[in-house]
């Protein structure tokens, strides 16, 4: 059986007045990405939205809010999956780090570093 991706399990909602954290994402103006603004404590979804509105919207600083129960967030922080020990620089947009290899090749060919594109 395939091992499930190791996110934290979701806790059932208490819904008995117990406070729990809710994460709030806000959009500053139309077209902007949703950015994490912070969190609020609330006993249920309705009050969570109220408090999100007050903490992240009362000064007209947001045009949209997303409110997510923290327990519903899939949390992945496994270092084997996110920070493996081998070099992964070839996966970066820049590819392999070529600086040292280029310098060695130029030295072998007796050329100096180009000074930039002509005119």
């Amino acid at each position: 059986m395939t091992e499930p991706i190791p996110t934290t399990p979701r806790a059932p909602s208490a819904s008995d007045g117990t406070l729990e954290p809710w994460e709030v994402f806000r959009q500053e103006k139309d077209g902007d990405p949703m950015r994490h603004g912070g969190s609020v404590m609330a006993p249920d979804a309705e009050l969570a939205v109220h408090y999100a509105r007050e903490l992240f919207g009362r000064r007209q600083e947001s045009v949209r809010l997303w409110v997510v129960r923290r327990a519903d967030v899939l949390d992945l922080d496994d270092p084997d999956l996110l920070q493996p020990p081998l070099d992964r620089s070839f996966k970066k947009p820049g590819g392999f780090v070529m600086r040292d290899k280029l310098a060695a090749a130029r030295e072998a060919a007796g050329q100096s570093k180009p000074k930039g594109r002509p005119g």
Partner: protein
Amino acid sequence: MTSTSRDLAEAEEPAEPELPVPALDALLRSMADDEFVIGCSDSEWTGIAPILEEDIAMSSLSQDELGHATALYGLLAELIDGDPDVLAYDREPNEYRHARLLDHGRGDWAMTIARRYLYETADAVRLEALAGGSWAPLAGLVGKMAREERYHAMHIGTWLERLAAAGGEARDRLEAALTTLATDGATVFTPLPGEDDLVTAGILAAPMSELADRWRAAISPTLTRLGLPLPPSSPVADARGRSDHGEPFTWLWSEFTMVRRSDPGAAW
């Protein structure tokens, strides 16, 4: 625009009907004082509300009410050539014209919720009766206030439902608060001196006594569903609904005028 066409435009406008200034004064004063007093009263929760988030919410709601008071005092000041700060801060306690509903002191959380519920629902009925009014400065302001009050109604409805559904001490306290406030709820609709002039001028859609009936009809379904006491249906008997404020308001007044009185005439 040339002076000729401007003259023409003015000539084509219908003659401006004369404003019923004394009645408008009474109306604006009652509304501004209501918003000012409930704003000051509820801001007493700042720092001690049940949880941090609610502390911020209640403080923010109180600031909204003070903002509405500022706008209404500003309108009144223009009408009577007065000063908004003088109106807000330089009167004696017995000169304020807020509804007696707001004269019970801060009380516990249930008292605050009960008072806000009765006031917000009454204010909504009042704003609706003014929104289409013939005096553009007030009708315009009321339209803006109503948009903010929409959130206030959501907030207070949420809390009323929760305290009512919680049972136990929370529900007991809510019932006690609603019983204490019941007869004073309708003081928001205390008849205003000269209110017939406001109705005739098309500024106010209906007399206060009729608005009181609309208010009872508006809140009855919710209170009945939750099994909570309804405000009595007897009309407000006399004009004392907006005077005779009593000791809790004298204390609140001494708080909100304290800084102003500490250095009279200072520019802040």
